[in-house]
Every structure is written in C-alpha cells, then in structure tokens.
C-alpha cells in the first residue's frame, strides 16, 4: 500500500474541493439576488436533483413557476408525496392569506342556446378545434365544449355536463389554481372570489346583432347592468361591448341579474332552488322594483315640483 499516493489524492482533490467551496461561498455573497422568500422555501424542499422531469428548468425554475405562475404542485416525481404535501402547506398558507378564488365558465352557450356554424369532425380537443376557422361555434368567444379545462384540472373539481356541453366547476373542490384558465384556448374560463355568488356567463365581445344571431343568451352590450339605478355601487363596468364585474366593490347584483334582457348574470345560489322558487323570487323582486321605481318616480316628481315651487317662490 502506498501512503504517499493516498496523501496526494487527499490533498489534490481536497484542494480542488476547498477552492471551489471558497469560490462558491464567496460568489453566493457577492452575486446574491433577492428573490421571493416563498420561491426559496419551495426550492429548499425540492430534491435538487435538477432532473427536469417536471418540465421546468431545474428545481428553482419549478419553484419559481409554482409561486409566480401557479403551476401544478404535483409535478415533482423524485420528491414524491412528501414534497407535494410540503409545497401544498407553503402555498396553502399563502392561499388563505390572499382571497380564495374559484373558476367559472363565462359562457352559457349550451347546445340549445348557441348555434353551430358547421359540423366539426376533428380531434376532440378545444385546441385542435380552434384551428378550424376559430371553432365550430357560431360565436367566436364561446365555449367549444371538448373539456380541455376538465382535463387540465388536477383536483377533480370539474366535469363536463353531457346535456349542456359545458364544463361545470365544483366550487368545494376548486382551489383556484387557474390551470383550466390557462388550458382554455377561448379564454372562457375565468376566476372569481369564492364568496361571491353572481357572475356574467358570457364572453362575447361582439356587437349586439352578431351575438343575438349566434346565441340566445349572449350579452348584446345593452349596458342596462351598468346603469346607476341598476348597480349604484358601480361594480359593473363596460369593457368594450362586454360588462365586467369588479368583485372588490360590495354589491349583490340582484338588480342586474333580473334586468339583463339575456339573463347573462348567473347566481350560483339559484342552482339549489327550484324553478318555482326562482320564478317567485323574480316576481317578488319585480314587484318590489316596480314599487321602488314608482316611489322613485314619485319622489323625483315631488322633488321636481318642490324645486319648481321653490323656484316660483324665489321669483
């Protein structure tokens, strides 16, 4: 046995290690860049095998994607369940701190409601169908109904309703990760706060005539919902020819729901009620509204008269 050889081996490789260690330690100080602490935390948990199995450039790349883009947290195969749980706990803390969101389908173009332009016989995928002159639906903005969003959901929080041909989100299971939003080629899937009830079930930015030709329940851009006496809070604003709800402003939007000529405002609470109940509620509201309008009219009239009287008195 040759001791000098062992010593040479020890020293030479040891020195390589020491030099590299020193350089790296120094570099990590000099070249330090501030990053989101969450990214660092997740990167810490990931196995650092940098194998690329997740499809992202290395563990830190994946950590960054999870935090900034809301990527699926289950992609790390070397880490297994342990890592998923830990990331979930980090991201979970964050999710409750912010506002919990759920996905919804901003289209009510069921098989009955929306017309088709032609029959489509391609691969049954939304992203394929889009390539054939924007899809087979007469409406350029509506749901194509092949359920790519459902496939994208890793939480089992969505299913396709066979009857309507539209995706349905199960609010209890939805974590608001936005995977379906990214999957949809028509941008029909959107996110809304979990505690809000009403959403606009139309995505069409087309003009009124065009919309009513292609869909029974499409928004024609009449702007009723944005009028001050419909939504005094100003929570609904037009963006082009489509109203958008600002969920930051508190409003029950009941007036908009009943006033919308195309019934584009959908109340999630209605799903549990029977048709009669809904009809009754609507009738009640209409009566109340009529009363209110009458009262308002009367008040306005009185006000005008009072003003007139004051004017006359002043003269």
């Amino acid at each position, binding site marked *: 046995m040759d001791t000098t050889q062992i010593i040479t081996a020890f020293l030479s490789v040891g020195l390589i*290690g020491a030099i590299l*260690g020193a350089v790296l330690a120094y570099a990590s100080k000099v070249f330090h860049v501030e990053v989101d602490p969450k990214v660092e935390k997740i990167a810490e948990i990931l*196995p650092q*095998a940098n*194998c690329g*199995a997740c499809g992202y450039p290395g563990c830190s790349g994946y950590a960054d994607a999870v935090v900034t883009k809301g990527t699926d947290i289950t992609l790390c195969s*070397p880490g*297994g369940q342990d890592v998923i749980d830990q990331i979930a706990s980090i991201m979970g803390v964050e999710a409750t701190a912010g506002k919990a969101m759920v996905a919804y389908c901003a289209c009510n173009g069921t098989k009955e409601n929306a017309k088709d332009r032609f029959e489509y016989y391609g691969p049954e995928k939304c992203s394929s169908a889009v390539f054939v002159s924007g899809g087979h639906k007469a409406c350029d903005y509506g749901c194509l109904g092949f359920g790519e969003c459902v496939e994208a959901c890793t939480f089992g929080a969505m299913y396709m309703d066979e009857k309507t041909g539209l995706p349905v989100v199960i609010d209890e299971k939805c974590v608001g990760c936005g995977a379906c939003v990214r999957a949809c080629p028509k941008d029909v899937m959107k996110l809304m706060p979990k505690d809000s009830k009403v959403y606009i079930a139309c995505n069409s930015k087309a003009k009124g005539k065009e919309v009513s030709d292609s869909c029974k329940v499409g928004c024609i851009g009449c702007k009723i919902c944005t009028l001050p006496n419909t939504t005094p809070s100003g929570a609904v604003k037009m963006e082009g020819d489509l109203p958008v709800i600002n969920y930051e402003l508190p409003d029950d939007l009941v007036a908009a729901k009943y006033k919308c000529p195309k019934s584009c405002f959908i109340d999630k609470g209605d799903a549990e009620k029977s048709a009669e109940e809904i009809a009754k509620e609507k009738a009640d509201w209409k009566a109340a509204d009529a009363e209110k309008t009458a009262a308002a009219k009367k008040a306005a009239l009185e006000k005008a008269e009072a003003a007139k009287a004051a004017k006359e008195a002043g003269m």
Partner: protein
Amino acid sequence: MNKLQNFTKGFFKENPVLVLALGLCPSLAVTTSIENGLGMGMASTAVLVGSSTLVSMLKKYIPGSIRIPIFIVIIATFVTLIDLTLQAFIPSLSESLGLFIPLIVVNCIILGRAEAFASKKSVLDSIIDAIGMGIGFTIALVLISAVREFAGTGALYGYPLFQLMGIEGFKGSILMILPPGGFLTMGLILGFMQWNKVRKAKNTGGK
C-alpha cells in the same frame, strides 16, 4: 407508511423508471441484453444503498448550504468504488457498461433519493428505501432489456430460445438493439403502464 410498504413501493407503484420516468439514460443505453441490464441495475443499487446510508448517517453534520456538493462527492465516491471493483473482478461487465458506470453519478434517482429521503429519515428507513428503489430500477432495466434482447437477437439472457427449440429463422431485428429500438421499447412499456392506469381508473370510476 410502514416498512414493508416503504420497501415495496419502488417495485411497481413508484417504480423510478416506469412510473416516475427518472434515470432514463442508463435504462435506454445499457439495456441491449439482460446481462447488461442486470449488471447496471445492481451497480446502481449498490451505489444507491451506499450513498443513502452514508448521507442518512451524516445528515446532522452536513451544513445545508453545501449539502448538494457533499452529496455529489459521496455518490461519486461510491460510483468510483463500484467502477474499480468491476474493473478488477468483473471486467467483461465493466467493458460492456463502459461510459455508463461513471455516469451513475448523474442518475437523478440517486441524488433525488439522497436529498428527498435519506437526508430526512432514519438510517434504517433510508437503507430500506434505497434497496427497494434499487430493486425497482433493476426490475425496469431487466424488463426493458428482456424485450430488446429478445426482439433484437431472438435470445433471452444469451440463450437463443427459438434455435434451442429447433426453430430456425427468427433472428430478431438489429434495430431493437440500436438506439431506435430503445426509444420504441421504452415508449411502448410506458404506454402499457398508462393504459393499465387508465383502465383501472375507468373501472373504479364506473362503479
């Protein structure tokens, strides 16, 4: 998770190659014959067990910020040990595996296991996990190489089955031994795994 589950999960349920799709380079490159596949699987298992044990033993003394370089050094040490051992005692295997013995170092399974499991769990658990994963890796390698060897040369573990039975003619297609065959076999096996998964999901979903 109990110890037995921990041991057997790598065989099939969390098979590193077939389910997790890790360590693909060796599982395609050396699987031209069962002998090579088995040799590679056992060499990797040995490295995996050695490095997992050591990492798990030293986990308290390794500073977090340079743990990765230290893990790499530990793994590289075991790989070199195996390399030297093979050269000295099983030279034929050493020659046919060639470049891919030193490349065990960069097999994601080993570093992944060291970081994700051994650096957190007890020594015994780490050893059990490492052996289980190693066996899973070996199973996958043997499976792939069996398909390729048979389709490529008509032989299994060096025994020409058809000729032994007196049937001449089937000599296999060289293509299966060549790189395209490796990719093809891998694709088909992974496809089969997925088919199985989809079928199971449908069965349970249907009820």
